[in-house]
């Protein structure tokens, strides 16, 4: 906690030119293979370009962006990205919180449980998606068999139905990342001072109250971080919806029912060879991420300020 503050005053060690040499490998590689491509994407987004005319680009100004924002496929992908993002992130983080709470008990065999929770994270998304396609097969898949034969519910069309297909794609994301987030929450929970629990127990707080008034506030920075990171991941969702389509084309289903912005960008660039439009989509995604992250941080800060005011008022009143 104090590390950041302390380093500023302590960092008086000589560095000189050698320091630049040490950060140089990072920045040289990063500049060549990350920063340069990002900037070039911005440049390309202002041109009419295809793979064969990459070196003879035609300037179109903001034309690609205008095309994009008047394109119904863009808005469809935009909406899908948001809905799939919500269906995959919200249950994922809530479940992770609950699981972390369970893992925080004084367990027998806790290493076993922790490793088991992390198994999906070790499974690649390519493999996980292949597996879930089989489980979600409308006719004869394990999930529909379970729903239909055991629970006597109607079978679900996990490919054709818009919401069902989005739930299916989100399930893959949720399966892979819930355990990972649970461990991150668990690490956060273990830094909460146990004296707080003891004090609240003396005050007669129930377990739910302890969770609500001790655990959750203590975890707030960790929760904020997982929300930010999940938002970044959800905005660029690509592999799961690409592979979930039986044709392995970036359509996001026969009616584009689960086409995300990441897929749309890939389709514009690699299927239709509109590199300018694809680049414009990529930069739009970046702007969306920045806005989403800033919104999250802003909301968190406002809440914090409001609570500090309340606490202050309560102290004054007392």
């Amino acid at each position, binding site marked *: 906690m104090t*590390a950041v503050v302390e380093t500023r005053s302590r960092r008086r060690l*000589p560095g000189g030119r050698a320091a630049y040499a040490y950060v140089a490998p990072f920045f040289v590689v990063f500049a060549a293979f990350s920063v340069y491509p990002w900037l070039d994407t911005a440049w390309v987004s202002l041109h009419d370009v295809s793979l064969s005319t990459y070196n003879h680009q035609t300037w179109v100004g903001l034309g690609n962006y205008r095309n994009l924002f008047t394109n119904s496929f863009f808005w469809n992908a935009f909406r899908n990205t948001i809905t799939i993002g919500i269906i995959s992130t919200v249950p994922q983080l809530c479940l992770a919180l609950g699981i972390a709470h369970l893992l925080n008990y004084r367990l027998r065999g806790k290493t076993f449980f922790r490793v088991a929770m992390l*198994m999906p994270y070790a499974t690649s998304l390519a493999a996980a998606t292949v597996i879930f396609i089989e489980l979600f097969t409308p006719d004869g898949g394990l999930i529909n068999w379970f729903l239909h034969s055991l629970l006597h519910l109607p079978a679900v069309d996990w490919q054709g139905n818009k919401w069902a297909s989005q739930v299916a794609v989100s399930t893959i994301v949720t399966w892979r990342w819930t*355990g990972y987030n649970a461990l*991150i929450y668990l*690490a956060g929970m273990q830094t909460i001072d146990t004296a707080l629990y003891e004090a609240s127990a003396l005050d007669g707080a129930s377990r739910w109250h302890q969770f609500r008034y001790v655990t959750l506030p203590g975890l707030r920075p960790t929760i904020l971080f997982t929300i930010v990171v999940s938002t970044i991941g959800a905005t660029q969702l690509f592999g799961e919806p690409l592979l979930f389509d039986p044709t392995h084309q970036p359509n996001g289903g026969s009616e584009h029912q689960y086409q995300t912005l990441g897929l749309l960008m890939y389709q514009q660039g690699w299927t239709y060879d509109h*590199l300018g439009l694809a680049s414009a989509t990529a930069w739009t995604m970046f702007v969306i991420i920045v806005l989403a992250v800033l919104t999250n941080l802003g909301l968190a800060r406002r809440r914090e300020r409001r609570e500090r005011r309340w606490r202050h008022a309560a102290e004054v009143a007392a």
Partner: protein
Amino acid sequence: VTSTVSRQAAAVPAEPAVPAPPRNRSARRGTHGALKPTWVTYLLLGLVTLVSVIPLYYTTVMASHTNHEMAAKVPPLLPNGSLFTNLRAALKLAPLNQGLINSVIVSSCVTIGTVAFCTLGGFAFAKLRFRGSGLLLAFCVGTMMVPTQMGIIPLYMLMARLGLAGHLPSVILPTLVTAFGVFFMRQYLTSAVPDELIEAAFVDGAGSFRVFLSIVVPAARPAMAVLAMLTFLTTWNDFFWPIIALNSQNPTIQVSFQSLATGYAPQQSVIMAGTLYGVVPVLVVFAVLGKHIVGGVMQGALKG
């Protein structure tokens, strides 16, 4: 460069992520005062474990039946004897072995590069004074927000121009360093190595690289191990850039899965057998190192 890497930003420590030796475990706050579990706790955890493992288990079931058996009214729930037949068919269909070899090469190169360069960079940011360090570090952290999509078109053109498209260096070079890695090592080294120690070495006339080799690297070893594990896993599972840069003649394992479903009538059992073949090596490593990987994820997450 992958979404997984940016996910790991959650694992950014604000305090040194001291990978806890076993003796620390029981003394860690929160463990000794933790609640006593009841049978409900174990029941719920058992359910979650089941959900984590069932898809992998059912893959084994599907991979060991013929397609015909899988189509039965009641899907089989236990493994059967056709695993090796399906596996042979899968290996004929997709270059899985080459995919595995390529993935080992790529992941090893990326891991070695990332750990070496990021430790070096992290050391400079944590312990050395130089003009613009604050700005450079802020830039480094900010780039974790950039989606993979933003670079792939120019990157592909660049690789084509360099004659690397379709070859392994095209997937190794771009991920040879990560912003996450630099920040991770910087956070760790800031308080893992006392300034006095480094000052004393400088007074004794050691150069900064000497200091790096004989003081910083030994102290950084636990964090380097964590970074190495996370980087290897992320690179192994990376999908987006490899599928663009490589092709089915020279794939990584993730790319080679694509060849399983092609052909006139894709056979589920064969697809599952191939998938299993590609996943098992990671899961075996994971089972052996699982405890350490769990520790790595958690220690990296301290004060996210």
